[in-house]
């Protein structure tokens, strides 16, 4: 059966609506993976509101069952949840996954952001069945998908997820400061054009993916002013994609200061870097409304 990946929010840090972000979109992280009827949702940034509206239209009144996998609980990854209209319908059911056995942290923080100090509607007023679940020892089967996770480099912790089904693989790995895990962290400054090296477990996690959705928030010019903020420069992400021999790379989590033209330029530089290194990876900028058929 075919399965699909659709981008509903690709912006990092804060929503950026307006004419400067029409092409790539201003909504924050939300990616849908679906193989009807299976529905998996990576992150609940403001793009989740749009996904919710689309689900209501697509499902035509049928009950909706979905599986939420949150990379972490920073604002830009959870803010859309209170506006996810299907969560208000008692016929629907959603599971919120922790990354280890019994891990309810994400579930508890989701409900916490709906306390009356922050939001007018209490979590308990969401009438769908919303329950915690977990990936056991970091690997579980969810509606026909094999789902694995690995921890990334990000303040407060974040996790990547690898989804596999019928020989195809998609990796969602956002909010990850790759430059801080390089074998030689000084290399990009010393030899900017040299291929960067990564820890083998990280490369293996991504190995052979048909699609890697990765944090490529910054350009090489921007990154030195943002060290420690938990995000990667796009050029380092390209090198990871090449090391892991992925087929397609979606540069994700665009910086809110980047206009569409800036993102275009960032992607051009990524493509040039991949080509210089003889890589065959197809590089593109993740943008709202883009849907890929994976299998």
């Amino acid at each position, binding site marked *: 059966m075919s399965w699909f990946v659709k981008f509903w929010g690709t912006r990092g840090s804060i929503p950026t609506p307006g004419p400067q972000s029409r092409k790539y979109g201003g909504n924050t992280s939300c990616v849908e993976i679906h193989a009807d009827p299976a529905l998996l949702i990576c992150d609940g940034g403001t793009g989740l509101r749009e996904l919710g509206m689309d689900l209501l239209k697509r499902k035509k009144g049928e009950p909706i069952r979905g599986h939420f996998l949150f990379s972490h609980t920073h604002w830009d990854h959870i803010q859309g949840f209170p506006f996810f209209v299907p969560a208000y319908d008692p016929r629907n059911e959603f599971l919120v996954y922790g990354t280890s056995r019994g891990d309810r942290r994400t579930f508890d923080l989701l409900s916490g952001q709906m306390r009356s100090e922050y939001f007018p509607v209490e979590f308990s007023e969401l009438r769908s069945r919303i329950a915690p679940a977990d990936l056991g020892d970091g690997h579980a089967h969810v509606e026909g998908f094999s789902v694995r996770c690995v921890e990334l480099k990000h303040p407060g912790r974040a996790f990547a997820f690898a989804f596999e089904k019928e020989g195809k693989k998609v990796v969602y790995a956002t909010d990850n400061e790759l430059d801080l895990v390089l074998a030689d962290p000084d290399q990009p400054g010393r030899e900017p054009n040299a291929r960067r090296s990564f820890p083998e477990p990280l490369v293996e996690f991504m190995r052979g993916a048909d699609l890697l959705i990765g944090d490529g928030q910054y350009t090489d010019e921007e990154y030195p002013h943002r060290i420690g903020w938990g995000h990667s420069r796009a050029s380092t992400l390209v090198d990871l994609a090449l090391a892991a021999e992925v087929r*397609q790379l979606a540069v994700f989590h665009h910086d809110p200061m980047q206009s569409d033209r800036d993102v275009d330029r960032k992607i051009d530089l990524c493509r040039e870097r991949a080509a210089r290194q003889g890589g065959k990876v197809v590089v593109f900028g993740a943008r709202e*409304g883009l849907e890929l*058929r994976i299998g």
Partner: protein
Amino acid sequence: MAPIPDQEDPEVTAGGTREISVNITPFTVGPTPFSLRLVHGPGSPRNFLLAREEVVLGRSSEADIQVDSTDLSRRHLALRREHGQYTVFDLGSRNGVYLNGVRIHSAVLHEGDNLQLGSVVLVFHEGRE
């Protein structure tokens, strides 16, 4: 657009300023059509205006936009307009739909997007409703 001044001779007032009469031309922005420009393939170059809410492009004579290339499936792609923008859908074509070099299933289109269908290349131009 700036107001257009009357071309008749202005009168000079006692205070030294000149009184002029100005005709204000109403500034209206009419709709402009969305379009696809065929830049490579049989019949290129050619513009296709997207006048309907749904348009099918393919090799078939029954397609709304027919491009007579064997690289195209009979019904290759559809363009659907919603909320003032067009979304492209691959209708299960043999050679696929590549948006700016990436094979896609569907995508919201923006000004200058490049659609490649085998050797056939089209460029999308945004209009205004």
